[in-house]
């Protein structure tokens, strides 16, 4: 894997579609200082996506793809859900795993990459919804934390099983009613960020995607800490505007309102992680 794989042979430049030529000429490969600031000026790694208009997940994915420090050396493992509709359209290595076992698959990939490329840094990032991370996949998620796998896990929490019609999930707040959960949630929202800390994650963050710069900051910290210390976990609020009855232009407003409530920015940094973060800051990478 190398960003050389995107260098088009000169004989074929004239027959390649414009967006593929732009990936070579104007995407931010090989630059660890890449970030959301590049979004208006450089080619994005997401070409198009099939999410609903105004979906906050789409914004989250764009910010994450723009922030990953070394996309040419990163593998993303994802799981079934709305996010999995996007992965076929991104210019990165992605693997779609069975529902819930994404952290187990990522653990294997990380170990093989370390064995196969001992001289190169390879990042493995898990990106899955709350159902895959917390409900059905909780076992695999936590076991990877216990084993101190050096992977980053990002949970897109929309607090509901959205693309199957609106069933409640473990992340649904108590009392919330959805189309397929008419009685309302009977128990509290699972505090996954706290469970991640207790299970051995070295960097944990909980936030909405209302602030692109903040998303960039936590993604970079999580990846750098996972590279050298151990598992990291990011919990992102990406509301399903359809399931909570909002219009396509109201996603940002919804996230901003939750910035002050149950998704108030929270960050945990272990002492070992703090050392790495300081080091990267000194290098100008954070």
């Amino acid at each position, binding site marked *: 894997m190398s960003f050389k*794989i995107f*260098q088009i*042979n*000169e004989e*074929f430049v004239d*027959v*390649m*579609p414009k967006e593929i030529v732009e990936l070579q000429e104007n995407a931010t490969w090989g630059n660890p200082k890449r970030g959301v600031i590049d979004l208006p000026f450089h080619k994005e790694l997401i070409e198009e996506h*099939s999410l609903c208009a105004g979906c906050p997940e789409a914004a989250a994915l764009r910010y994450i793809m723009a922030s990953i420090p070394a996309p040419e050396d990163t593998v993303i493992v994802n799981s079934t859900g709305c996010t999995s509709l996007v992965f076929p359209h991104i210019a990165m290595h992605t693997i779609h795993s069975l529902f819930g076992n994404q952290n187990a698959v990522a653990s294997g990939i990380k170990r093989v990459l370390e064995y196969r490329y001992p001289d190169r840094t390879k990042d493995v990032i898990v990106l899955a919804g709350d159902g895959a991370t917390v409900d059905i996949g909780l076992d695999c998620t936590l076991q990877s934390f216990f084993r101190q796998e050096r992977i980053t896990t990002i949970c897109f929490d929309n607090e509901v099983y959205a693309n199957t019609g609106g069933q409640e999930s473990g992340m649904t707040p108590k009392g919330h009613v959805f189309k397929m959960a008419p009685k309302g949630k009977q128990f509290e929202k699972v505090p996954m960020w706290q469970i991640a800390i207790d299970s051995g994650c070295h960097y944990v963050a909980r936030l909405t995607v209302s602030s692109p710069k903040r998303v960039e900051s936590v993604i970079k910290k999580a990846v750098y800490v996972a590279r050298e210390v151990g598992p990291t976990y990011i919990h992102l609020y990406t509301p399903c505007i359809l399931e909570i009855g909002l219009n396509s232009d109201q996603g940002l407003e919804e996230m901003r309102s939750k910035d002050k409530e149950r998704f108030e920015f929270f960050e945990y940094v272990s002492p070992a992680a703090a050392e790495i973060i300081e080091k990267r800051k000194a290098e100008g990478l954070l």
Partner: protein
Amino acid sequence: MAKLGPMGFSPYPAAVKEGVLNPPEGKALLFDEMVDEEIAMKKAARAMLTRENPTIFPGPQVLYAWSEDAKKKAKLIKELADVFGAKIIPMYDYRPKYPKINPEVEINPNHPNLTIWHNNIKACIFVGVHCHYANVALKIIRAETDCFTIALCSMEGHEDAMITLRDQHPSELEKFIEIAKEVKRELDK
């Protein structure tokens, strides 16, 4: 299996089910027949020179400059396209594209028939497409179109193509170009 087309669903899901296997080293596959490489090259050249809208579909292994071999092959494929007067439509990656591909300028292994239908391609060459995706695409093309498919494979070949040339490296491509020029002269084109 050894039939060309017709359009519509193929009654044969895979050539291998009909007992058609890839050729051994030094040989080529012409429909379900093992033949010498030169014979297959001549037939392939004739198909590309006589059928409508001949097209070369280069895959990622030759489209991108990831190795010296890939750079050499790119030059040779371009030369081959000039000899055949063929169009080049790239299969630059294998992602299912949303909302749909532009069949005028690209081909995708998930629905290669769209590009073939749109451009009315009656003969094509697959080169530099990774094994699995070439196999999928060639099956779909055989099932859904009347296009004559030729696989220039750097490994063991693809039994679902009508002509399979295996172990095709730069030296073999040079040989194919020479044969193509010869056939072109014979056809007085």
